């Protein structure tokens, strides 16, 4: 099946977003004139050194921070309305599970907050736990699970209320490489089966190239976009693809972009 670019609904439409912090040491330009359109079903990665504003961009889209200037629409509404309409699920670098709740109860938490019926909570928790391969762990508590398993629970929790958009802020950053590879494959499958739009922050080049349909390369001081790279690997790709020349070519381009955007004179 050919993946012809059919015109799709924009899930994120950011135009000229700037965000300036006033700190004790003066102004910090966290984001400077960032524009980005993300269509439904895309997997967009943000990559760049720390301080380049990739996490800030995600937080602005999530309405956890407000831009100083620019216009932003998320799922066709303002960022605040999108948050109130529960349009996105957010996955942080640490799983941030609630330690006094069992795994099942953790996944039910957003559903409880949103007022889903008890039966609906039950069936959704079951469904999303099986989606992240954690069936049978319902009654365990977070401390009984490994870091990778906990992060899968937090992904299931973010998906549980079926948001249009999944925002992931370095979700595998704290995990070792073997677990990370494994979860990358799982996430790819998940993305295909759920057809969600994913925005994914990382500073691993292979991770970004492997997962994404588009890679946004950012650079710090001020935080801005310096390159946007399309990737179109077959949807049923496996980790072996990382050895192919096409993969290495894109990885090389990302690396070049990162180097160009970074001043090493500090």
């Amino acid at each position: 099946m050919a993946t012809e670019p059919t015109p799709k609904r924009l899930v994120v439409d950011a135009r000229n977003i700037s965000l300036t912090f006033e700190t004790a040491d003066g102004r910090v330009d966290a984001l400077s004139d960032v524009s980005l359109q993300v269509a439904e079903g895309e997997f967009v990665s943000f990559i760049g050194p720390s301080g380049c504003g990739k996490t800030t961009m995600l937080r602005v889209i999530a309405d956890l921070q407000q831009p100083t200037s620019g216009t932003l629409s998320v799922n066709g509404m303002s960022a605040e309305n999108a948050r109130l309409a529960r349009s996105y699920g957010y996955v942080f670098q640490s799983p941030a599970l609630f330690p006094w709740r069992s795994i099942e109860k953790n996944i039910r938490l957003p559903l409880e907050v949103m007022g889903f019926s008890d039966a609906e909570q039950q069936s959704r928790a079951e469904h999303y736990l099986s989606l992240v391969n954690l069936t049978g762990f319902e009654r365990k508590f977070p401390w009984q699970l490994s870091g990778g398993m906990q992060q899968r629970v937090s992904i299931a929790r973010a998906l549980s209320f079926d948001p249009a958009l999944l925002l992931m802020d370095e979700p595998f950053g704290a995990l070792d490489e073997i677990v990370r590879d494994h979860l990358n494959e799982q996430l790819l499958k998940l993305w295909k089966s759920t057809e969600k739009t994913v925005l994914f922050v990382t500073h691993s080049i292979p991770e970004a190239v492997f997962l994404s349909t588009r890679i946004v390369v950012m650079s710090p001081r001020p935080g801005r976009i310096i390159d946007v790279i399309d990737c179109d690997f077959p949807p049923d790709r496996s980790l072996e693809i990382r050895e192919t020349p096409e993969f290495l070519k894109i990885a090389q381009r990302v690396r070049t972009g990162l180097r160009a955007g970074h001043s090493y004179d500090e």
Partner: protein
Amino acid sequence: MTSSSLALPQPVPWRAGRAFMERYAPIATTVLALVAIWYVAAVAMNWGIVRDGFEREETPYTITDVLSGTMDAERPLLPAPHQIISAFLDGVFGYPPLAPRSLVYHSLVTLSATALGFVLGALFGIVLALMIVHSRVLERSLLPWIICSQMVPVLALAPIFIVVLGALGLHGLLPKSIISAYLCFFPVAIGMVKGFTSPDPLQIELMRTWSATPRQVLRKLRWPAAVPFLFTSLKVAVTISLVGAIVAELPTGAEAGIGARLLSGSYYGQTVQLWAALVAAAVLASGLIGIVGIVERVVARRMGAH
């Protein structure tokens, strides 16, 4: 996927015995040492009284007579441990539970004031903490007063409370409970402010991404996160509320209660009665802490503690 059921080695009987010894031997040694010192001190402190007694009655006496006299003097300066224990046991078992000489009766009187004061104080402390956590203005206006309230010695405040509440027609249990609550709300308020603000910022942001109401954030995040802090402060509060109830019985001239026993004991120089009442207070306090500890363990298990 690994199963997380850990196979812990089962304790072998003799090992369990040794673990028991390792745990309790130091405690037993300390207790024995303290009792020994106590006996020596009792002999030394009561020596003069007993000797003077013999001399006043002009009866001939030997050192052995004085020595044995220091062990069972009627009004010793420092009663020997066995005197205190037998007075305590006599007070507990020697009378019907509701007789005016029964320590059980006096303990129950104090316990009821303690329990009411503890509940009132803990609730008040939690409400204060909620107000402080939800409003910066209240934090700035309430916190100094809360701290000030604990700087005034309760022994000075208690009579004022009793007089004022008495003028309002409140007698008996309630004034005592209010003094007890006045003391024990403090650790609860301070502990719960810490507990309500203890959640991880990420957890608070998650609630925000789900657009949870402030009420939901309180119920599903702040409250459960504060539970360990609650029990720590309740353990402190429960002993303080017992102290508060006893102190409240002193200036009221209460006829019943451990405070009343202490007061009449010191009034009439009944040191053995005084010490027996102290032992009763100590037993009550450890019982109360024990109850809070059991509830804590049950709640912790239900909340998935290790």
